């Protein structure tokens, strides 16, 4: 049989029973669409999280007090027991690191912010002028905290976009006076809206000089020190230098933890990639189910067309020609299903992106390819048994059946 004839014959056979064929195509399509949409969701989640973390600022090393590694016994442990706190001077010392470009200490606490007639509880972050560059934040009005001695601080504050909105509405905020706790600050700047990062929403923060924040909360410790490496390649160096400097300052004990953004990102990347893969696997089950359906439908079709198969044999069709005709039919049906499922899936992903513009629900290429190939492969694989059965039919008995 010539290839075009084979294809024409198989497509005639497929369209000869439109209900059966369309149901089968639908089953395969749902399987492929499930793979495409679910992996789009999984991969979208991964991209979303990575984008959120990237907004923290690049080349970042975060230093926090406390140790996460097990170390040897040190006589100092016996005396102090608890790890030493991070101080402003620690932060200042980090600037000596050769690979460290900027350092921004952070001290946080909650307090009340008030303007005449309005009162609100806010997170107050004490930091320095470098913070805005380390975090790559934008100022929408005024300027960030001024460059000054870290140990002292002018009574100025920078507020987040949401704080501004709630305290001042549409009115201008720069130059206005606010009360935070029992201190008065003059607003010098408003941050542009940025969203979540580092577990704190900068839109809802009030930034004041670090020395004033420590005074307000009556402590001399820091919550974090943000360290910016000179460039991406020097992140590990910057991390090592930061740890070394702090170890020296803490009497030889490494009692701080430094995490790099890359490590955090890589962890999330791995985690969410695994999630996407798992979701793809679950979706693939529906494809396997569709494959079994292909087999079932083709088997029924062989029974229904028994007398036709007998006739074809009488007319000189070889067993292999009949096998091929059924295989081509199964392949065509699953290919149609795969294409339809691909379009459905892409449409579904587009719909999700339409409703949640911030969520990058793009199916990864590998998942789309795997979905299409699996659909085709299962269709053909599960078509083999019915095709074999058709080819092996006894023509006499097949013809006798009406």
């Amino acid at each position, binding site marked *: 049989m*010539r290839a075009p*004839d084979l294809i024409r014959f198989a497509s005639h*056979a497929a369209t000869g029973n439109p209900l059966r064929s369309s149901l089968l195509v639908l089953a395969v399509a749902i399987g492929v669409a499930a793979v495409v949409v679910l992996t789009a969701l999984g991969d979208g989640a991964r991209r979303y999280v990575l984008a959120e973390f990237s907004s923290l600022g690049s080349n970042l090393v975060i230093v926090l007090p406390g140790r996460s590694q097990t170390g040897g016994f040190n006589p100092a442990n016996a005396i102090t027991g608890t790890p030493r706190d991070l101080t402003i001077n620690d932060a200042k010392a980090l600037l000596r690191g050769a690979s460290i470009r900027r350092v921004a200490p952070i001290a946080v606490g909650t307090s009340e912010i008030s303007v005449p007639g309005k009162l609100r509880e806010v997170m107050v972050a004490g930091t320095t002028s470098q913070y805005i560059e380390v975090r790559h934040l934008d100022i929408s009005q005024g300027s960030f905290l001024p460059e000054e001695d870290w140990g002292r601080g002018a009574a100025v504050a920078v507020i987040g976009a949401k704080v501004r909105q709630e305290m001042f509405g549409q009115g201008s905020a720069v130059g206005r006076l606010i009360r935070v706790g029992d201190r008065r600050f003059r607003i010098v700047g408003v941050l542009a809206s940025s969203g979540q990062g580092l577990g704190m929403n900068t839109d809802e923060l009030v930034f004041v000089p670090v020395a004033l924040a420590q005074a307000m909360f009556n402590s001399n410790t820091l919550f974090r020190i943000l360290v910016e490496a000179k460039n991406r390649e020097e992140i590990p160096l910057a991390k090592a230098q930061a740890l070394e400097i702090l170890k020296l300052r803490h009497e030889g004990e490494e009692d701080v933890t430094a995490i790099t953004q890359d490590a955090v990102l890589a962890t999330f990347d791995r985690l969410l990639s695994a999630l996407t893969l798992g979701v793809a696997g679950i979706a693939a089950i529906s494809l396997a189910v569709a494959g079994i359906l292909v087999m079932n439908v083709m088997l029924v079709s062989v029974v229904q067309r028994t007398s036709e198969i007998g006739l074809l044999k009488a*007319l*000189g069709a070889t067993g292999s020609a009949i096998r091929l005709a059924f295989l081509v039919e199964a392949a065509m049906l699953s290919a149609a299903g795969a294409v339809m499922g691909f379009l459905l899936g892409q449409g579904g992903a587009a719909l999700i992106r339409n409703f949640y513009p911030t969520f990058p629900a793009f199916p990864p290429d590998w998942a789309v390819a795997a979905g299409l190939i699996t659909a085709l492969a299962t269709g053909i694989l599960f078509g083999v048994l019915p095709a074999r059965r058709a080819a092996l039919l006894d*023509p006499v008995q097949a013809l006798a059946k009406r």
Partner: protein
Amino acid sequence: MAEPQIRLAGIERVFHLGDSEVHALHSLSLTIMPGEYVAVMGPSGSGKSTLLNLLGLLDRPNAGSYVLEGRDVTTLNPEEQAEVRSRRIGFVFQSFHLVPRLTAYDNIALPMMLAGVSPKERDVRVNKALKDYGLEDRAGHRPEELSGGQRQRVAIARATIMEPAMILADEPTGNLDRATGDEVVHLLEELNGRGVTLIVVTHDPGIGSRSRRQLLMEDGELRRDSAI
């Protein structure tokens, strides 16, 4: 003397129905010359159809030899047998056996499609066949849109399109009324007149009497052969 077209010797065909054995054909020997017109008659279950299936290579004997055109065909593998069916044998069935989803044109073209004849060649031959059998205006109709006589004419056109050496017809008039049946018989006889061997299984004594040779089957055995 010319080479016989068909030579059956000591053919046995046994079916197993549960525990019992049914001898559908028993020590059957038969020679048919090219161009003969043979009617196979006999009561139901006498082995007529089994004989026809065997001659058409749709069935294999349990014992005995079948030499078709000087070639022992019982030893051929299924693919080779399919090739012989394709080139040398045309089937006409009582219930026509047209493919319902295909048009008359495509039904007639089917054996050529299976044999891999080029579409151009196919078109020429199908159009000629449609004309010869008076089906020109029925080419695009599906079997369900054709009358019984037209269906059987399509089936005969299909059986002859590969220009086989013999036509095996199993009760070709069984599903037709008298007049249409006669028409079909005439068509088959016309083919026979052009040298095609015609073997018809029939209950119809009318056809039986028209044929030049009658075989009477009973209980799987050849009871009477008018040629002997």
